[in-house]
């Protein structure tokens, strides 16, 4: 006990350390103009604004399909899909990035029949265009959980399709 009192009288080399904070002088809280937690509140408000803004931008894109921008120059061709990512072209234009991609797919599909179920293309109706589009696309990560009912010449094209999970479903859920 006397050692304690000696030390406290001598100015004390007893120090109280927090694990996370450095050994600095204690922070003074005198004369704060705003609320103490203003940074905390500002941070969370900023985060919420960011998320809500992103959600509204995405829903706007789905509702209006992006406002009609200037008609792109027919001579410019987009070779790479990776470029101009932030160029929003939701409308169906013959020279838009995605339409070009769709055309490229259809050309490739017409050329290479081996990958796709040939027997189905002829029977494609417009009512279930969605499912046929997905099914005849040979989508990667497409899990066929049911065995083929009708044995085709194409072994990779089962007739009954349950899109268990495709990358597309991620977005179009």
């Amino acid at each position, binding site marked *: 006990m006397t050692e304690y009192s000696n030390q406290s009288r001598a100015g004390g080399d007893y120090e109280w350390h927090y694990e996370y904070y450095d050994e600095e002088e204690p922070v003074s809280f005198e004369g704060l103009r705003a609320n103490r937690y203003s*940074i905390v509140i500002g941070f969370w408000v900023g985060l919420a604004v960011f*998320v809500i803004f992103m959600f509204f931008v995405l829903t706007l894109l789905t509702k209006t399909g992006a406002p009609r921008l200037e008609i792109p120059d027919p001579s410019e061709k987009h070779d790479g899909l990776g470029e101009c990512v932030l160029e929003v072209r939701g409308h169906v234009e013959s020279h838009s990035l995605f339409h070009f991609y769709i055309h490229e797919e259809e050309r490739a599909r017409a050329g290479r029949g081996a990958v796709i179920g040939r027997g189905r293309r002829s029977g494609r109706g417009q009512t279930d265009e969605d499912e046929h589009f997905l099914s005849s696309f040979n989508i990667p990560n497409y899990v066929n959980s049911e065995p083929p009912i009708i044995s085709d010449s194409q072994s990779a094209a089962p007739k009954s399709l349950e899109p268990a999970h495709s990358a597309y479903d991620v977005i179009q859920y």
Partner: protein
Amino acid sequence: MNSSSEAPFTNLTDCAEVQVPSQVFLAIAVASLSENLLVILAVIKNKNLHSPMYCFICNLAVFNTISSFSKALEDILLLFTDAGHLNSRGPFELKIDDIMDSLICMSFLGSIFSILAIAVDRYISIFHALRYHMLMTMRRVMVILSAIWVLCGTSGALMISFFVATTVKIFFVVLFFTALFLILLLYVHMFLLARHHANRIASMPGAQARHRQSGLRGALTLTILIGVFVACWAPFLFHLLIMMICPENPYCECYRSLFQLHVVLLVSHAVIDPAIYAFRSTELRNTYKKMFLCSASRICKQCV
């Protein structure tokens, strides 16, 4: 303990650190462990799920398992220390503490990289669908996964050894923002393509009703995906930034006093991840149904 040296502190430091009881951490860790172990089990058991995408999802689950396991272990050891069985300053305990911190750091880095890998894989499967199976062979997937593990392992060990250096914190923050930017880019691009396809389909007769609903659901999915990622990681990263930028400012001090809450958010990310990535897959859910139905019917047969 020593009130005379405590009093000056309580007068000046108004923002006392918010303590979260260890039971909360333990509960979150147990929930995360069970969910992620279920995901790993389902992916291993079902042969249909041995594809690149599910490998990446399983990898994410493994990292989450490691992080929640190490966090739980750390909490248990802290409980022992508080009860007096362990010396918090002993060399052995410090070493154990360092090892667990490296494991946690490694698993945090690993989950960021896994989420990025999942986004890149989905992107390739949509935009390079015809060449996907040539680009993403299982061999390449294994190479990518081992590269992620080696990178995260070494980074975790290095970061904990040199944590006091500012470079480490800057590296962590930069890594997070790069990953976030890339994820935003990839998913928004995929979303735009999906919308374009949906518009084309909707322009044909007979499919009008589903158009709006699927659009909203897509936007909601994407917002939840990115929103959860940002909401769980950003507070902790902002804490690191504030530690570097303004260690003396009282406002910053009040933000730093919420450190344990931010760590709670960080570990709860491991609980939410399976719900966002793994459990959305119908095939995975079917695997669970089969597993539980089979075990239930086996139990019933034994009872009868």
